[in-house]
């Protein structure tokens, strides 16, 4: 049976949502998937404004070139976007919503349709802990990558770590990899 996972990331311009989608796609290939795609929202983007990025992962060659309307997984890099954007728009029944927040799934699950799973991780806390900052602002994209293997078996945490270290060499890579590793351990998923 062919496996296809469609992912949408919500972030703010400059937060690294597109980089996260790219790293995710590479980690997916290295985890043994046959094909992957990663793309930004098709259009203009501004720093600080809500932005989207997308990824597809499959056990087969991907011939799809249309946009993703019904993702299996939605990843939210900034919890305050929940006030601005309908992050569950089009999310499949049985799909997963992964949010960067201090809250636990049990505290927020009632806000979302009961047809989806909710996963949370405090990626901002991890970015602050490991001092992953650009211009004084915590960058959460690598930390939240570590949470993804917790919600899908298609991506292995070892491959996430490997890809992060490949992208950010040296000390920076170590800090980002540690944040991802911690996120993997801390991520909680609603039943």
């Amino acid at each position, binding site marked *: 049976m062919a496996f296809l996972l469609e992912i949408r990331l919500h972030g703010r311009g400059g937060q690294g949502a597109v980089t996260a*989608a*790219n790293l995710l*796609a*590479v980690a997916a*290939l290295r985890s043994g998937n046959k*094909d*992957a*795609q*990663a*793309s*930004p929202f*098709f*259009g*203009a983007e501004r720093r600080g404004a809500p932005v989207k990025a997308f990824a597809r992962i499959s056990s087969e060659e991907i*011939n*799809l*070139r*249309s*946009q993703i*309307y019904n993702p299996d997984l939605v990843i939210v890099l900034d919890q305050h976007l929940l006030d601005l954007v309908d992050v569950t728009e089009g999310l499949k029944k049985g799909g997963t919503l992964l949010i960067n927040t201090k809250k636990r799934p049990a505290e927020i699950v009632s806000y979302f349709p009961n047809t989806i799973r909710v996963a949370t991780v405090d990626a901002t806390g991890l970015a602050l802990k490991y001092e992953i900052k650009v211009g004084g602002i915590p960058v959460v994209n690598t930390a939240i990558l570590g949470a993804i293997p917790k919600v899908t078996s298609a991506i292995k945490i070892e491959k996430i770590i490997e890809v992060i270290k490949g992208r950010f060499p040296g000390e920076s890579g170590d800090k980002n990899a540690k944040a991802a590793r911690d996120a993997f351990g801390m991520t909680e998923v609603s039943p």
Partner: protein
Amino acid sequence: MKLIMDTANHIAGEAAKAARAEVVAAYPITPQTTVVEYIQKLISNGEFDADFICVESEHSAMAATIGASATGVRTFTATSSHGLLYMHEMLHWAALARLPIVMVNINRTIGPGWNIWADHQDSMAQRDTGWLQFHCGSNQEVFDTVIQSYKIAEAEEIQLPIMVNFDAFILSHTSMPVSIPDQPVIDKFLPKRKPVWKLDSSDPLTHGNIIPPDPYLEIRKSMQESQDKARDLIRTTAEEWKKLTGFWHGGTVEEYRAEDADLVVLAMGTLGSEAKVAVDRLRKERIKAGVFRIRSFRPFPIDEIKKLSEETKLVVVDKALSFGGEGVLYSEVKSALYGRKNEIFGWIAGLGGKDVSWQDLVQMVKAVKDGKAKPVNWQKGGKGAITGFI
């Protein structure tokens, strides 16, 4: 072989590097895409040994590329949308001067209103310039086609420029896995250019002087003969590349489940890839559909299309329109099948980047199958992908 994950824009830059282009001339500002900044980065890092000429317009970009190519070196440039239109005069010049330039064009529509999304209006408007024109469906195909294009363009019997097209955003900004063969493999496939003529200060000649009507017509006829010869060469070059690398995207056409098909979707670029998904779904419903993804728009694959049975119904999906006429590809397909019985239906879809999904394509094929399609149909406007048709 090295596997990388990157956007088609960066892959096009990697291909120019791998082809050992010696001069790149380009205008770096909108509607230019990231191809050029990537190439400039490669050159300034010392990874790509080429001269970069930064010019003040696309007209000048092509003029500089022509000048460089005329000295016998391998040249590359990139453009998009209005930039391609601004080059139009020089595109004719490059082809008439028989210069084997390779250029990537990122297919973006034309304004106003200002729109940076994909359709084929820009490249279709260059139909009659004498350039060979290829359209790609994946990032791997962008790499492979750029390399193959130099071999085809520089062949002694061709000596014409080639435009390699790929859809804005859908490929240009989307990362996909691409395998890049080792440089010695590419060098063996694509040796240094051997110019048929060149400007050389130690052996001076003049070029582009006045030419009277009789030889003019003969010279133009030779261009058409070269376009005709290119059809076989496109296929054999792709076959040679497949032997070396394993990668195959078709010759002038990529055929998909078309052999026994009652209905065949004809489309170019990423629409042709998406159509494979539609065909797989239709086959599950026992509808015998297939795809002809037109890779080479110029030369147009007339003989390949004629191989289809006269009973096959054709669904031609255009991302460009000749106003007051019809879809550009639709016209071409009808012309290729002149005198035959095939029923041919056209759709205008995806203009200005409007998404065309496999669901849209399924609906188009079903409309033809159920006798509900008109000769010319339009994708419906409005939000979303699953939009039906008018």
